[in-house]
């Protein structure tokens, strides 16, 4: 019983259907700078030779909306079209969602001056909110104008409700489908002023917890992930890699003779094994012996490197990048009544997304085009990388987006899709490449390890007036995130990175630099609060001059956890705060410690977040809770170590991710009600955890945890010291 999946019916292939239907109205939207809706003729020249539509209303009333919110469990596939639907005043049950094709010129957001589609930093809602509202409002205006023309009345006299234009004077109604069947999209589309958008009090969808559209498919096995795709004539591949090496030779004859093996393929930094079935290629992988030219990371030792970072701090010739300079830090320190210094370290971390990296690629017989199936955070990057690998124009590559079994920053490069393309080209057949979990770990791209040196100057009133923070590591901008402290007002600051280079692959990792930077910052602040004999919240409000927004977060979380109340024997609280993607969150943990084993148990977590307007409360909360657990897992259990250039961990027996038994008994998240633009919520729940635990740990033991992660072994060392 061999059954081929008919991929022509797969949901990921249906994007063309948006444009295929005749009749109805198609709306094309130019995003970004002063968003405007343009008609098809206007959009066409910039649209890579095809008309790119965002929204289409069919005569039967079915509305199809593209979502640029690549779906990895955060819910933005649903959220973005829902925002447009709100402004359209359309019937949500008539809305169908399709994933936007990888045309960044059309569907990309503008971030830091660049147009991009990568959904990273949990910014999908933040970056698309205004654009999707404008687009929906423009579509609604066109529908009203058409109805007004049909009825020969003033547009201003009409109103809309759930996919109908209504004339209150006559009681007449026209459905959006009826209007789309007969009406037209004007050449010049109406301009909507921001004040003409639907006021918050009239929202029916935003803020109400619309269920995610992807969930029903995820409880019965029908959701299609990249790993689930099967094409006619497809063969299977897996690979071995070296972090920085290139293959010189391998036992090719032996491998090719193994059952089912069809070929081996040399890759830039590895060797692929291709075969008839996946178990056969995994078996062959177990037998492959590769001679490597090991490259830069050949003899790399992560522990040694971390020790060496301490020297880089004192090295006047270090590769220094200034990240922030404010006031006169030198003077603040020379005038200081009190100076604090502290150092912190953190190890490499691995994404451990549940679905091992994989892609399916089919190269056309003539080699002139290709098609990719992948769960990706950045379909545009996948398109470009596959095109590059095959020597094609990007427009010749079709990307079929599948669900991602976790992203966390790893799935935004298109690298393994490009690898699969190389194999498919060489083999001349459609290929499914699946990295084994072992490969996914040993060839991972990690949250970089780091060393932190902090200094703070206090004047004679206790006010923190000077701040120096230096982070050492290999990872460029990955080391910067979370190193700024905009939620405090410290007048004199000097913040820098000292770069080193190892060649070990590093990558974004759910708030990446925040994990170690916020750990260092908020631990240091706590040390100062203790030394000043002040309540940690009071210290942050007074001596660190926390902003009003931060104050609200602190006060809210204090109320949630009953901050001043006594805790049971053997328990203690710790506090911390972090900012990520515009959101601010103050959190408190309650922990206990098993002094024999060194195991820290987190019993309760409270988190108060200002994330602007909350578009989908249920999903927002789920994202924050998910980040809390990801954070707990990362700092209590997860550790990547590298010896002689090789990652020592290989699967979930030695790369420990949190299990259900370590779940806190209480996890309370509160979204502070504000009226500002939505900000990112998928990551702000993660970075505060490390310092909160370290601060609670100090209250239990009078010892400070200075090295992430807080594994049992490491905790015991700290207790002994």
């Amino acid at each position: 019983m061999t059954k081929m999946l008919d991929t022509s019916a797969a949901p990921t292939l249906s994007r063309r259907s948006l444009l295929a239907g005749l009749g109805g109205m198609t709306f094309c939207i130019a995003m970004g700078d002063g968003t405007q809706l343009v008609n098809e003729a206007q959009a066409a020249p910039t649209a890579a030779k095809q008309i790119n539509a965002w929204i289409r209303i069919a005569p039967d009333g079915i509305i199809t909306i593209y979502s640029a919110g690549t779906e990895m469990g955060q819910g933005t596939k649903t959220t973005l079209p829902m925002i447009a639907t709100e402004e359209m005043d359309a019937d949500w049950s008539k809305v169908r969602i399709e994933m936007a094709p990888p045309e960044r010129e059309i569907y990309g957001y503008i971030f830091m001056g660049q147009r991009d589609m990568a959904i990273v930093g949990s910014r999908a809602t933040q970056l698309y909110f205004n654009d999707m509202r404008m687009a929906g409002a423009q579509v609604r205006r066109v529908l009203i104008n058409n109805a007004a023309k049909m009825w020969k009345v003033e547009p201003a006299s009409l109103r809309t409700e759930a996919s109908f234009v209504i004339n209150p004077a006559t009681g007449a109604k026209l459905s959006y489908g009826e209007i789309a069947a007969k009406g037209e999209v004007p050449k010049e589309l109406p301009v909507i002023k921001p004040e003409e958008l639907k006021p918050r009090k009239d929202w029916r969808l935003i803020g109400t917890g619309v269920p995610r559209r992807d969930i029903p498919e995820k409880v019965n096995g029908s959701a299609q992930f990249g790993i689930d795709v099967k094409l006619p004539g497809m063969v299977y591949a897996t690979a071995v890699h070296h972090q920085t090496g290139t293959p010189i030779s391998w036992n090719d004859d032996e491998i090719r003779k193994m059952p089912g093996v069809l070929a081996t393929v040399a890759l830039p930094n590895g060797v692929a094994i291709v075969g008839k079935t996946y178990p056969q290629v995994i078996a062959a992988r177990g037998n492959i012996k590769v001679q490597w030219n090991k490259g830069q990371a050949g003899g790399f030792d992560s522990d040694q490197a971390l020790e060496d970072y301490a020297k880089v701090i004192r090295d006047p010739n270090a590769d220094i990048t200034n990240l922030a300079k404010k006031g006169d830090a030198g003077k603040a320190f020379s005038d200081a009544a009190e100076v604090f210094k502290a150092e912190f370290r953190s190890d490499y971390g691995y994404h451990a997304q549940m679905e091992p990296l994989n892609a399916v690629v089919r190269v056309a017989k003539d080699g002139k085009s290709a098609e990719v199936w992948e769960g990706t955070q950045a379909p545009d990057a996948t398109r470009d990388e596959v095109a590059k690998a095959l020597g094609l124009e990007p427009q010749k590559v079709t990307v079929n987006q599948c669900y991602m079994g976790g992203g966390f920053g790893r799935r935004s490069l298109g690298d393994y899709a490009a690898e699969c393309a190389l194999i498919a080209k060489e083999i001349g057949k459609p290929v499914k490449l699946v990295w084994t979990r072992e490969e996914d770990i040993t060839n991972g791209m990690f949250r970089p390890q780091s060393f932190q040196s902090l200094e703070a100057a206090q004047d004679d009133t206790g006010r923190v007036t000077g701040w120096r923070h230096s982070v050492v590591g290999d990872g460029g901008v990955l080391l910067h995130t979370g190193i700024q402290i905009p939620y405090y007002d410290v007048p004199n600051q000097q913040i820098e990175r000292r770069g080193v280079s190892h060649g070990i692959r590093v990558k974004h990792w759910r708030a990446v630099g925040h994990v170690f930077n916020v750990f260092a910052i908020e631990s240091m602040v706590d040390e100062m609060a203790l030394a000043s004999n002040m309540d940690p919240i009071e210290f942050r409000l007074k001596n660190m001059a926390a902003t009003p927004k931060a104050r609200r977060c602190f006060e809210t979380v204090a109320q949630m956890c009953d901050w001043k109340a006594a805790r049971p024997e053997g328990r203690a609280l710790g506090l911390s705060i972090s900012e990520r993607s515009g959101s601010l969150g103050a959190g408190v943990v309650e922990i206990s410690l098993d002094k024999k084993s060194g195991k820290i148990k987190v019993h309760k977590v409270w988190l108060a977040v200002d994330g602007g307007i909350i578009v989908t409360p249920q999903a927002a909360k789920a994202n924050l809770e998910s980040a809390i657990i990801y954070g707990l897992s990362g700092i209590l259990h997860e550790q990547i170590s590298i010896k002689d250039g090789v990652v020592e961990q290989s699967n979930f027996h030695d790369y420990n991710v949190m299990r259900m038994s370590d779940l806190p008994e209480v996890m309370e998240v509160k979204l502070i009600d504000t009226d500002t633009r939505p900000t990112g919520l998928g990551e702000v729940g993660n970075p505060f955890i490390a310092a909160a635990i370290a601060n609670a740990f100090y209250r239990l033991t009078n010892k400070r945890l200075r090295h992430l992660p807080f594994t049992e072994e490491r905790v015991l060392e700290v207790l002994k010291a």
Partner: protein
Amino acid sequence: MVSFKLNGRQVSLDVPGTTPLLWAIRDVAGLTGTKYGCGAGLCGACTVHIDGVALRSCQTTVSEVANKAVTTIEGLSKDSSHPLQKAWVDLQVPQCGYCQSGQIMKAAELLAKNKAPSREEIVTHMDGNICRCGTYHKIIAAIQTAAKGA
């Protein structure tokens, strides 16, 4: 040729007897709801029922299930009507969803023998199933909801 019952239907798969059941189900029988997470019995993403017992299909060969009854997530109910599936949707449990077939199959084994599991019993039973997205608290709540409704 190995014959067994798969979601109530008799199937004969033309694969070596040593093939892990996981890949036979996914790549040969075409039921892709059962997932590969670790291939080493460490994560539970590949959990299926064999004669009603939740087992890891990556650690089970097809010859071991000869003449037995295998149930995958696709066979748990015809129309997502199992109380667990309903609770999973009501409480919006999944994030990425990749682990959830395994979670639901593991939970279904518990509910079949324990109609009203305590939080502690749920945690003990489910502890081998990793959810990297951190939906553990929702899984517990959904199992309790399903237990009440079932």
